């Protein structure tokens, strides 16, 4: 199953999906590379899940085309495309055992029984559920069900694996553990993974590239670092982490241009010393202080009604120190390179 590296695993060409008046997906263009761990990130209703469902074949585009390794699959039913899905609620068949669930795709293909057993065992081992084959889904924990869903979706060796909010139903600890594990499994099987999430931290931790969705359109596609450090729009800057947006007159005073720029709170320093030439420097008054243990969040007013959020790690300071900063005049500084101009 070798594909020329130039062929994208998934390609969206001007894809739209309308539900009546609502444009759930609006003229989206997108390419996902072979072997990538790709995240579709966005708030609910942004069109990311609809995109995933169109790749799987549960929904059909109103217009535009979707290509799977060069083949137009826009109108193929789900069972005729080599793409499998891990559902948000896992969608395990309650009347079947774990083994039967995992073997389902093979049974449909009428693979010989012995071969089925062998491959089910391999898959269960991959997801660390060896020996669970004869249990019923109702006897498993949430994390275990998720692994079964993963094994079931991988057994057919799909060209692309789709994951719909795969970790949404798990608690924080388990989620963090599964993030690492999913990544490792993807490395091992070498299949393109596309997953949908509304959790920016999850997207940043796990994926090679991220597409940020808003209102049916893609705002930005890029590596986690690009998305975080160079947000292309106000939406991305706000949705992925927190960010200070500065525009108009003040922006001009700082950068010499009226163009809106964003600066991450952790890139801003509270100083007393004079900054070097490549640093930006501003005066401000601390309006509010929130002590958060590992770090402290300050709200600093740099002009009437314009506040910047600043985050400082509590390396040397104590809570007493930071809280006494409220109301004091401070100097803010950041490196010029840490500014990211938004596209107009």
């Amino acid at each position, binding site marked *: 199953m070798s594909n020329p590296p130039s062929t994208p695993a998934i390609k969206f060409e001007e894809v739209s999906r309308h539900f009546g008046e609502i444009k759930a997906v609006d003229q989206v263009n997108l390419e996902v590379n072979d072997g990538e761990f790709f995240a579709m990130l966005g708030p609910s209703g942004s069109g990311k899940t609809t995109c995933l469902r169109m790749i*799987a*074949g*549960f929904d059909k585009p109103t217009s535009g085309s979707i290509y799977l390794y060069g083949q137009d699959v826009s109108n193929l*039913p*789900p*069972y005729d495309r080599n*793409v*499998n*899905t891990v*559902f*948000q*609620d896992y*969608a*395990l*068949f*309650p*009347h*079947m055992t774990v083994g039967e669930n995992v073997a*389902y*795709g093979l*049974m*449909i*293909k009428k693979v010989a029984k012995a071969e089925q057993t062998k491959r089910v065992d391999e898959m269960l081992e991959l997801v660390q559920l060896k020996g669970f084959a004869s249990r019923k889904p*109702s006897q498993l924990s949430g994390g275990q069900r998720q692994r079964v869903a993963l094994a*079931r*979706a991988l057994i*057919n060796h799909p060209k692309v694996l789709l994951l719909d909010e795969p970790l949404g139903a798990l608690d924080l600890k388990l989620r963090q553990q599964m993030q690492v594990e999913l990544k490792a499994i993807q490395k091992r099987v070498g299949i393109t993974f596309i997953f949908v999430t509304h959790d920016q931290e999850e997207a940043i931790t796990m994926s090679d590239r991220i597409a940020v969705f808003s209102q049916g359109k893609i705002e930005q596609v890029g590596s986690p670092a690009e998305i975080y450090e160079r947000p292309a729009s106000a939406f991305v800057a706000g949705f992925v982490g927190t960010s200070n947006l500065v525009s108009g007159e003040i922006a001009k005073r700082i950068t010499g241009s009226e163009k809106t720029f964003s600066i991450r709170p952790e890139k801003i320093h509270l100083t007393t010393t004079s900054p070097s030439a490549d640093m930006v420097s501003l005066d401000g008054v601390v309006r509010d202080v929130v002590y958060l243990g590992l770090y402290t969040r300050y709200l600093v007013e740099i002009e009437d009604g314009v506040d910047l959020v600043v985050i400082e790690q509590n390396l040397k300071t104590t809570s007493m120190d930071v809280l006494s900063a409220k109301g004091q005049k401070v100097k803010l500084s950041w490196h010029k390179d840490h500014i990211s101009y938004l596209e107009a």
Partner: protein
Amino acid sequence: MHSKKAPLGLTIAAFGTLLFLHVPMLIIFLYTLTPDETTYTFPLPGFTTKWFGIALQRADLWRSLILSLKVATIATIIALILGTLAAAAVYRSNFFGRESISFLLVLPIALPGIVTGIALRAAIGGFDIPFSFWTIVIGHATFCIVVVYNNVLARLRRTNPSMIEASMDLGANSFQTFRHVVLPNIATALLAGGMLAFALSFDEVIVTTFTAGQQTTLPIWIFSQLNRPRDRPVTNVVATFVILITFIPIFLAQKISAESSDTEGENK
């Protein structure tokens, strides 16, 4: 769930109502033992079990029983197939008429049997179809379908729709998905619906009077005794028999439904 104790008055009223619903049937059992052939005297003037033997010897009763069983079986089979199809169609589709279809399918239960009966009678007469075994079956199938439809639709609505998508996703076409995923999930609903339909058909009398020709189902036989009692003690035996034969499937059907909704509750 709060475990407050109910006021005594409420408890008595509640269980009194329950008794009111069940005692009359027990009284029929009692009367199968009366030696009195012509009246319903209470207390019973004595005890005898001879009527069971006499009822067993009656060829006309056997014929009616077999007819009723045949009608109920075939009507149930038709209902299982068509009721499931109707439920699946309504569940899957979002088409405009969906609500009205499900409204129409409730009609045969909400409208009294006499309407269904006379309507079928008019139609049968209109097409000059001779009254036969099959006209009874068609009549019974109308309300049996509704029962199956309701049971199956309720179950489908509680079935996770992404399960069906998961099956298609794993390569199964619609038919395979129905066979491997949908059918096993609605199996108990079908069983419950089928048993209810069977029981309903077995003691149905109103629609039958309009759709039967010369055929006498067991309920028709009882009905004739209601107006002109000739074989009172035998009627008691037959009535007892009808209670038992309908009681069992209905009891099982209710148990199945209660249990399946219970286990679903636990899985959530």
